[in-house]
């Protein structure tokens, strides 16, 4: 027995061999994950060319106001008419006022391009000039005698733009073959009357997609009570599908009839609840009740009583909080005025609005933080300057000087800024572009 023990190896055979398969399994199990091929990002650089499309004048007193917040010196801007002619060519104005009737495209290069802004101003009414884009959404459009919407399209480029417009009403998608392949001529403009495209339809939502080229667009809603009184009109600003809580403007007491239109462009049913912001808090109203919106569906709520109750209780704005990206717009009207309050998710960074004359009220809400507010008049002189604290749960309001000018709001946090003025004018501040975001370009796999 002792002899047998003495010839036995120090380690059993399995102790020498077992580690091999185990090591193999461990090595194979540790093989790394595939390389991330999507580590590509956009490149940001200073804007060197910017164009804004401006609609045609609604009355003879309107003028185009434009300028730039960039500090550069040498730059030029041109207002190109759809005839191909150049209406103006100016160098670095502090704030330019030009009487221009025709629709056109304001093109700025080099130092004037970053922070470019423009708007058509007529008294207290301001229609912002918009940046050309390839996709736009609107809600609360109409194509009936009582509520008719027209879309003013501007093509800033030297090739024609081809558009597909999809319309949705309370029953779903609207069949309208003529809104496919809409052609906007090169450097030209086109006006689409929804009453011609989808007669008698109401509570419309529209999606504009440029399949070729790009356009800037302005939508004007005209409300007619059909009782012989003068129709009233309002700008219907574009909206974007978002899950971020949207502030539907600040409700104006003069307006009595309120209609909330919502659309769900996502593929999932959205759960929507409403909140109301006052000067001291944000709370959930007893009405309207939370609701669910099916994919592709459009909903229209008449909120005359509910908003009256909200105003009575000190509420200043109606907010929409959705589980999925939705579109929301609130239109209010009275016998003499109308306003369309588009959902406002807010912006981070500098925002600006060209202001008309008359009384004006600035409403600010958003994430808690400090906001710098500066208003300049036509000569560039600062007429209002204040650093204000914005609370997440409150809506702050400030009166602005009656003079026309430019209002600039700067903040590092999310801020929803809205200005209401005389004649029930309403406009949200627009983000300014100082930088351009263009794709990172790199070789792809062989083809």
């Amino acid at each position: 027995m002792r002899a047998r023990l003495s010839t036995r190896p120090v380690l059993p055979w399995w102790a020498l061999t077992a580690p091999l398969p185990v090591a193999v399994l461990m090595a194979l199990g540790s093989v790394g994950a595939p390389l991330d091929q999507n580590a590509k990002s956009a490149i940001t650089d200073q804007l060197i060319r910017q164009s804004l499309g401006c609609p045609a004048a609604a009355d003879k007193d309107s003028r185009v106001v434009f300028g730039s917040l960039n500090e550069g010196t040498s730059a030029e801007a041109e207002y190109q008419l759809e005839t191909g002619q150049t209406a103006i060519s100016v160098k670095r104005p502090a704030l330019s006022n030009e009487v221009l009737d025709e629709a056109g495209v304001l093109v700025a290069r080099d130092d004037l391009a970053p922070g470019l802004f423009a708007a058509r101003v007529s008294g207290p009414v301001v229609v912002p000039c918009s940046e050309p884009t390839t996709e736009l959404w609107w809600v609360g459009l109409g194509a009936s005698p009582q509520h008719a919407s027209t879309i003013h399209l501007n093509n800033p480029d030297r090739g024609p733009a081809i558009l597909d417009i999809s319309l949705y009403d309370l029953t779903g998608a609207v069949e309208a073959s003529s809104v496919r392949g809409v052609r906007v001529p090169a450097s030209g403009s086109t006006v689409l009357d929804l009453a011609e495209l989808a007669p008698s339809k109401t509570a419309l939502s529209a999606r504009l997609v440029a399949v070729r080229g790009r356009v800037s667009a302005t939508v004007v809603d005209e409300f007619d009570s059909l009782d012989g009184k003068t129709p009233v009109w309002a700008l219907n600003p574009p909206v974007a599908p978002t899950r971020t809580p949207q502030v539907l403007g600040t409700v104006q007491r003069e307006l009595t009839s309120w209609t909330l239109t919502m659309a769900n462009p996502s593929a999932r049913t959205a759960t929507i609840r409403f909140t109301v912001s006052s000067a001291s808090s944000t709370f959930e109203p007893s009405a309207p009740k939370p609701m669910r919106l099916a994919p592709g569906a459009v909903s229209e709520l008449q909120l005359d009583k509910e908003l009256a109750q909200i105003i009575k209780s000190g509420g200043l704005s109606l907010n929409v909080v959705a589980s999925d990206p939705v579109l929301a717009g609130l239109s209010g009207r009275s016998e003499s005025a109308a306003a369309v309050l588009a959902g406002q998710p807010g912006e981070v960074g500098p925002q600006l609005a060209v202001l008309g004359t008359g009384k004006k009220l600035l409403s600010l809400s958003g994430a808690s933080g400090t906001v710098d507010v500066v208003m300049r008049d036509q000569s560039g002189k600062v007429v209002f300057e204040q650093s204000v604290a914005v609370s997440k749960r409150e809506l702050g309001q400030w009166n602005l000087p009656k003079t026309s000018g430019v209002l600039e709001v700067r903040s590092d946090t999310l801020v929803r800024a809205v200005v209401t003025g005389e004649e029930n004018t309403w406009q949200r501040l627009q983000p300014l572009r100082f930088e351009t975001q263009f794709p990172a370009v790199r070789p792809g796999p062989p083809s």
Partner: protein
Amino acid sequence: VSVSAILVSHSGAAWLPAVLSSLQQQTVTPLGVVAVDTGSKDESPDLLRAALGESGVVLADRSTTFGHAIDLALPLTPDSDWIWILHDDCAPAPDALAQLLTAAEQTGAVIVGPKIREWPSLRRLIEVGVTISPTGMRETGLEPGEYDQGQHDEVREVLAVNTAGMLVRREVFVALGGFDRNLPIFGNDLDFGWRAANAQHTTVVAPQALVFHAEAAHRGVRSTPLTGRHRFYQERKAALYTLLVNRPGWLVPFTLLRLIGGSLTRILGLFLVRQPGQALDELAALLTTVFKPMPWIAARHARRKLPRGDARHVRTLLAPWWVPYRHGLDWLTDLGSALVLQLRESLGRAPTAQAEADSAVTEWSANAEPEAEDISDEQGLLVRWVTNPLAMVSTLFLLGCLVATLPVWRAITTDYLPQTPTDAAVWWQLVRNQEHALGAGSVAPTPAYVPVLAFLSEVLFQQPQLIVSLLFFALVPIGFWGMWRLVKTMSRAVNLDPPKWVLVGGSGLHITLPALSGVWSDGRLDLVVLFTFLPWLAKTTAGVFQGERGQRWRAVWRTGILLSLCCAFVPTLWLVWLAATAVGLLGTALWARKEVLAQEVWLPPAVMLVCPAILLLNWWLPFAWRGDWLQIWGPFGATNRSQLTAAEILRGQLGDTAAEPWWIAVLFFFGLLPLVSKRTRWPSQVAWLVIGVAAVVSLVFSRVAIEVGSGALQPAISGPIVVVMLSLTLLTTLGFGVVVDHLTKRKSSLSRISRSVVMVGWLLLPVVGLGWWLGPARSFASVSSPPEVPAYMMQSSAEDATQGVLLLSGGPESGVSYSILRNGGVRLGEAEIVAFAPENRALTDLLSGILRDPQRAAVDGLADLGIDYIVLSAPPNRDVAATLDSAPGLQQASAEDRSSRAWDVLKPVNQDAVVNQAEPWWRFMLGFQILALLVLAVMAAPGRREEP
């Protein structure tokens, strides 16, 4: 009739006693015998003096030529009618001289030679007269090793007879000037006989006179200062000299040309049979003769004084013109036979190997139940097939596999396999060029597998598609056969003799693995080639470490070639082989440190690993030159679609249509069995070590990113995983062999039943694999849609490589990637060249500029870079499309469908934007590789066996 004998000796003490004795025993005694010793280093002079006396021996120095030696002896011989010349290594029969004299008397010949037999065999014929062929070869008219059975015993006129035993009339010898001093030792007989024939003298051979000749100088048994170590050089030089001196003057230029051509052919042949020494001797003899013509020109001049006879009669004594060609044909036949024999040896079917195998089988059969192979050979093939279930199953299985391969006979295009060019010239162009008109222009090296494909397509009727199909198809016959041989070899190494059904199961499982792992249906040509040839590579690699020295070195060259072939498709395999070899040598060093340092231990594997580095020089050297070492290990097709995760590897899923991982579990489980069995433990540990090495290589490479213009590529880790699979299949097969062996040795009925169950289970594995192959894995999958390029753009790019189509995809958020389509789309072998090209910064910057601020100058720059159209892939990003819409210099072009967008660059393209450019340096390198391949092939081929 009087005869004097002259004996020339040089270090011939080994034979002299017998020679002198036979001289004394002659029935006709010469008048006198004079011996000339040319500086012997042995006791030859003493032996001669003892036999012939002091006066009968002339001592000359070592540089004395044969002819000079005769001249020294001639004056000392008694005045006689005849001279009988003898060598110190030739022993005449007692009646030799008498028979020679009789023949001379009967024929009137002045030169008579004996029949010469081999000494010491005494039976084989060496010469019965001799002549010379038009290429200078010595022609005896005898078969090599022909036995003397009296078949040549006829006195006849010949051109010459050997100087060993030559009887020549003294006055004729003197009149002809004796032997030529320019011929030190070889060729004297032919030259003298031809000279005599030209002078109308008759030479006959007298077969009744017998001389035994050791041919010590010719066979290299002894060396003399006159031949040195280059005996073959002296022989060839003498032969060429003889031809040029004796042929008619007007034939000399033609003779010279033919000698040059013949010698070069012989040099090539000698290289092919791995006799470089003789080849160089041949070359040296040719060069010496051609570039130093004075000796033979002077000799021709001197011989003008001699009388000239009937040239037509002399021609009848020379060998016919066709003799060299017949020898060439014989040589080729011999080479073919040798190759077949070598192949049989390497396959283990040589008589010796078969005998060993048969003995093992016999031994095993004694204890086993009758196997299928016991069926009598006398029965017909069909009967044997029908009565052999295993043969039937195997045949049906292989037929099923062949059915599964039917889709390869059409053009295959998958995610991993671009379209095959219709003309092999495309591949040759890739091989030849340093700069390629592909993509944005590329100077990346051509993939290593392209020369292989180009060469094979040349061999097979210029059909590139046929080559690709054949490579896929070869998996069944060659992969099956290779795995069979590998298992057989490994089994024999562990004294295991598994039944054939175990081999069938293992080999069958191996060839279904590509289908089970999803490699087949993905069209992974690289991995299918690896599955096909890896068993052969493993088998030859095993040969590098075992066997005799010659066999080992042949295995080294074969492994080098096979490793190069596999690495051409899967470069990472080289690292697996390198790491496995290193681990093996390190492991050996632990046990025997000194032995590892021995050259014969480390040199063969080192050479084996160097071979791919030489043969694939075109692939890796340009990368190394640029410092892009990682790109050498890039994946086949330069695609990242072959990336593998740990989960996929452990499930054996190398492709999209892989089967459920039951089979990899079987392989892992049964691969452990050989570790348990004591008999197979050691080799299976080695196999598991190889698996471990392959796994570690995969692990390391999975963490590596190869930076190329289009981003990061992962090295081809699929190759090492195939090594893992092959090793596991081998281990599993051996494991089943062990189980069967264990069960067979037990005689209980339970063991018999268990054995049957194991057999059915084992054979079921490949059958199920075949089922998967015939089912989901049969068709080649292509999950990506072709680029949305309109037909007119494809045609334009195919007709002119400079008319490129810029393909864009992505958008502002994900980034825009671009590629340039030329030649109607990327073809097999081109993807790597495009992908490994350094990024064309000019193009990238141009595109960035256009997307940022479209200006006419930037758009025109696209035309300058050879871009005629732009296509934005579906779904087109609207921002990018809108930007291009607004770009001056671009015009809307009709797209393939509404989902994509296209533009025409208005400025005409620059015709010189991209070019194909070949460099002489690359041709030189290619030539070097071809030469290296030829040398390796020669070294791997069987050599010419030394004559006994």
